[in-house]
């Protein structure tokens, strides 16, 4: 009996599952395109969509049933993502929660913490913002200075976080805080969850390249957070954050369907405008297909290995570089095909406006979730064995 026979195709059950999510999306997708999730109105529309997803138990199919999931495996999650991107369903406003904090809680949280936070996350009642970076701690995350001092069962937090994605309208933030004031670098940090409506918190939205506040600064001035909101023990923050960052760079943040969908749209755009395109564009169309296909194969390969007991480590840095460069290249190519139409706004040219918005966002890919330069250092040091 060969238990591990290679099989690169879907099972009957997986195909049935695909049909189920497909039908559900057809029946439940919003009839009109939602407003941008980085506007107040759009944010609440996207929260409603999270609630709708949850009503069908689709928030996070890999989670256990008791927390609003379906107890499915990573392959089925990838199928869900494929169907989701195929119909261009709304952006997940709670991706910081469901993709990053969720898995972290599952691994490091207490039962009480799981009960309190996971269901509210799945239902969209708690939308989460990231709270890693500080003005003096970007790529060098161990330089974090925001303090959390334990006092009568509360952490008293003082300092400032920045580039906090979704914080303009979110309900909670999670991040690293220095709980041991004598400590340095990655020692003495703890992983704490903080409601954003507490007294002493000031959120100052930062308009992004598209003019909308996708991230924000968060100021903490004697903010009191109950000690129960710490994940893991005091001083365990760095270890837990590294695991969270691994989820982000690894499978969860950017499933391949997103890029395959972009590659398919790029091909359509090319075919509509073929008579004006040079062979140089053909080369880019092929590169887009070949790389998005490779990324998908790689992720299915990785997911299969993980399901056979392997764990994912620094390898996730390879993928983060690959998809972020690919995404940029595809959008750049789309703008070349659009030519002089590329700069036009939605009223003039709806397709062009979508591509240029995506193009601007693709510039962020090599920066967020750890810059690509930091990822290359990680690859060189941890995978190739080069000295720090």
């Amino acid at each position: 009996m060969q238990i591990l026979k290679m099989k690169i195709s879907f099972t009957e059950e997986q195909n049935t599952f695909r049909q189920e999510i497909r039908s559900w999306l057809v029946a439940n997708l919003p009839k009109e395109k939602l407003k941008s999730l980085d506007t107040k109105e759009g944010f609440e529309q996207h929260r409603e969509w999270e609630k709708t997803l949850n009503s069908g138990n689709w928030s996070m199919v890999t989670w256990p049933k008791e927390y609003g999931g379906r107890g499915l495996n990573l392959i089925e999650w990838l199928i869900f993502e494929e169907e989701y991107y195929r119909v261009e369903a709304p952006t997940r406003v709670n991706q910081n929660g469901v993709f990053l904090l969720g898995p972290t809680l599952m691994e490091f949280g207490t039962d009480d913490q799981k009960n309190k936070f996971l269901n509210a996350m799945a239902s969209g009642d708690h939308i989460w913002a990231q709270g890693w970076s500080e003005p003096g701690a970007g790529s060098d995350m161990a330089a974090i200075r925001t303090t959390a001092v334990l006092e009568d069962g509360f952490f008293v937090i003082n300092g400032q976080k920045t580039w906090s994605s979704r914080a303009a309208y979110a309900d909670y933030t999670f991040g690293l805080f220095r709980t041991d004031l004598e400590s340095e670098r990655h020692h003495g940090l703890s992983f704490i969850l903080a409601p954003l409506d507490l007294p002493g918190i000031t959120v100052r939205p930062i308009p992004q390249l598209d003019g909308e506040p996708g991230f924000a600064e968060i100021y903490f001035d004697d903010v009191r957070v109950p000690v129960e909101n710490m994940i893991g023990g005091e001083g365990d923050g760095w270890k837990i954050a590294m695991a969270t960052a691994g989820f982000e760079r690894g499978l969860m943040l950017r499933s391949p369907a997103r890029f395959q969908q972009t590659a398919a749209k790029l091909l359509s755009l090319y075919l509509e405008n073929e008579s004006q395109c040079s062979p140089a564009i053909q080369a880019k169309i092929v590169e887009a297909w070949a790389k998005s296909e490779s990324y998908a194969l790689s992720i299915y390969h990785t997911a299969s290995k993980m399901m056979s007991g392997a764990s994912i480590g620094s390898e996730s840095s390879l993928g983060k570089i690959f998809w972020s460069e690919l995404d940029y290249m595809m959008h750049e190519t789309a703008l070349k095909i659009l030519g002089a139409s590329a700069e036009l706004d939605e009223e003039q040219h709806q397709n062009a406006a979508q591509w240029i918005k995506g193009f601007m966002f693709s510039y962020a890919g090599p920066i967020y979730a750890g810059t690509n330069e930091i990822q290359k250092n990680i690859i060189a040091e941890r995978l190739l064995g080069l000295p720090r």
Partner: protein
Amino acid sequence: MKFVFTEDQLQFQDTMRGFLSQECTPDSIRSGWVDKQPLNQQRWNAIAELGVLGANLSEEDGGLGVDQVALALMVEEMGYVALPEPIAEQSFLINDVLHLFPDQIQDAIRAEFNEGKEYIAVSHPQNPHPVFLSEAKGLIMIDETSCHFVKPSDVSSELIKSNDPSRVLSRILGVKNTISSDDNFQQLNQEINSRGTLLTASLLLGLSQKMLDLSSAYVLDRNQFGKPIGSFQAVKHMLADIAVAIEFARPAVYRASYSLLETNPKSALHCAHAKYMAVKAAELACKNSIQAHGAMGYTWEMDLHIYMRKSWSLMACWGNDDYQQNIIFNTLRSSDDELGVLYTF
């Protein structure tokens, strides 16, 4: 969906790796160059004794029945050591399509190749100069319309020099007494083309990994400004870029192998994809590896060029990335399938 290897498949790879690390060292390759005998008969015989030469023949043909996926893993190891003997791109190729040759050609191959242990050379529009013709017991020639088998004594040819001293090439001037047929030609030609493409892609994966490993070791060893040059980010990032390119070429090669195994109707596209990605990885591996080695990389003395030369040759053989790009483009353009999210598997 289980995109993982079986224990058996990994075992074949391990065995191959262990054997070749002993038998195919840079020194042994260099002494083949000096003696103008790059094909090492002793090593050929040792590989034959392992049963590797007929590995992918069916058991009734005297082989081991190794599948294309395991074969890809074994071939990667042959690339890793820059094996001069053309076992992957000629022997495995012939074995794999043996049953597709017209009967009279199949009989002629069987009569000569001793269950894969003797060498049959191949010429094809994408591989026009057969390697090691003087060692061959037969030559398969594919032209635009038909397939021919000819005995080496009936071939008039001249030796031509490759930039890779491990490859002895011939230009065919004329042939007589050929056994020719155009039976089943389209399918045969397509399957040969796909396998030539995929087997060279697997070799390039191994070669790229070897160049990366050599470079990582070199930059750890070489000191400037009082520390290993591998501690400088500019150097780290060049090598990290190679690692990324290899990581995403690999699953394309594995998938294409699996497609051949399963006779997937898209296997030609999948093989083109594999070679396209493998060539891109190998190009970067060559360029960044020589840069990481500095002037040492530009010397004959350093072993790096053993692997670079082999890569340059194999990138071009059986269709370079530009050729594969055309195949992919024409498929994307004409396919009724929406080649997107739902059509990977």
